[in-house]
């Protein structure tokens, strides 16, 4: 069971602001979905190892060779706001 307070808490973690009028529906949707995935609780998973990737992967290493990449200008050209070669964000510290 997910409560409205849970939803507000998760929303804050996810950096999403949920409007008050959407809270009810969202709480119900998430309760339904979490209720559905509860079925996994009945499986005995005692000695089962978790799978994070279907294909077993070890570190993918390559030679450390300098190659062309995006320039500062190219990267900043698509930024919402940029200044002096940096991404500009709203004031963080006074």
């Amino acid at each position, binding site marked *: 069971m*997910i409560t409205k307070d*849970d*939803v507000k808490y*998760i*929303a804050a*973690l*996810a*950096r*999403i*602001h*949920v409007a008050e009028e*959407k809270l009810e529906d*969202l709480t119900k*949707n*998430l309760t*339904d*979905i*979490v209720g*559905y*995935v509860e*079925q*996994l*609780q009945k*499986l005995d*998973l005692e000695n*089962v*190892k*978790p*799978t*994070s*990737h*279907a*294909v077993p*992967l070890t570190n*993918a290493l*390559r030679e450390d060779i300098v190659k062309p990449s*995006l320039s500062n200008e*190219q*990267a900043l*050209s*698509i*930024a*919402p*706001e940029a200044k002096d070669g940096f*991404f500009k*964000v*709203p*004031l*963080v510290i006074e």
Partner: protein
Amino acid sequence: MKLHSLTAHQILELYKTKQASSKEVYDDVLTRIKTVDSKVKAYARLSTQTSAGEGLLSIPIAIKDNMCTQGEEITCSSRILKGFHPPYDACVIEKVKQSGGLIMGFANMDEFAFGSSTESSCYGPTYNPWDLLRVPGGSSGGSAASVAADETIWALGSDTGGSIRQPASFCGIVGLKPTYGRVSRYGLIAFASSLDQIGPLTKDVTDCALLMNIIAGYDQRDSTSVNEPVPDYTKALVNDVRGIKIGVPKEAFVEGLDPQVRSSVEAAIEQLKKLGAIVKEVSLPHTPYAVATYYIVATAEASSNLARFDGVRYGLRQSPTSVRKNALMDMYEETRSKGFGDEAKRRIMLGTYVLSSGYYDAYYLRGQKVRTLIKQDLDEAFKDCDVILTPTAPTTAFKVGEKISDPLSMYLSDIYTIPANLAGIPSISIPCGLSKEGLPIGLQLMGKAFDEEMLLRVCFTYEQNTPWHTKKPNL
């Protein structure tokens, strides 16, 4: 001649005998788009390219709106990426361009590929060319509809839980999700990185093999790309299934399966038997848990992947109207709240929840363990068969609006397609019938890792002996 209604291999024949030029094909497909796309709405936007180039494989192609293409706007059909012009090409786009491919446009999709109906796009829904009141499936619904409506010759989509195969099934075309690692994901805007794979949507199996020849292969820039030799997939187009072992899971024919889908798939099984295949029952006891597992694993990965959309480096930035916490935090929240649609918010929040402190072991870790069991079921079944056959989707295309307010019922339309993503194995959907309402029905085959050739061979044989791939919607 209606060039737009041809397959790629038919067009290549015309090129060879100088009966058509790439410019004629390009112009004809563009005219077709202008004639029918106002009804189908398969494209989010057309390419800024305005003329046909020349190349060995100058075939019109539609690209799902989540593959970075330099000089174009690419948005994942989300408001949060409106105006995003990637400064580089995805690996598959480089390969398509090198082959001479004619990029017609960028196909509509569920926002960030979150959906099975293409209704969650910020551009509004795409409609199924077979019945404009119905969805084309999703999330690669625009790619599938563009192929079915002859608004392109072939298309690229991406598949995280069925997003190529389910729309291929709903639109009566061929859709392949290759083995995880077979096609580079460099430049594919990520949804769930341990599941995502790019693949072809085509009018027939021969085209599927041809497009795989273009896009498959190792790429150092995708660390999950696998360095295995790439075969010539057209060599797998052999009209012979004698002795090939086809496993049919007893769990596949369960409650919720549309009787018409069931009978078409059963008829396909009989047909394959007649052609000499050996059909045997297998068991995949944990597949009933696949959807639940997927919605933990996929949303967890999505919540992490989509954290990058914060209004700082690209895409939308929304300034807050009032100060709630602090200016930077407010900007993040405002941007993400305005930029993401409802389904994206739901999935990000579900993923955040299953990864959050106190719930990680109960959900995410548990999900990963059940993933192991589902993969083991498939490994076990493949010890005794070459391919596994199921329906692609439990129903034919549903009506626009039918499932949009009930996310869970939408999720269940991927019940047959999800296991292949969890196990990383290749899987294909091909048309195997039409319902009495005239809607396409899809047949799914799963294969062993890196054995796309076996899938192509069985499907090619089935296709050569059945009429379904020649059926077209009346638009």
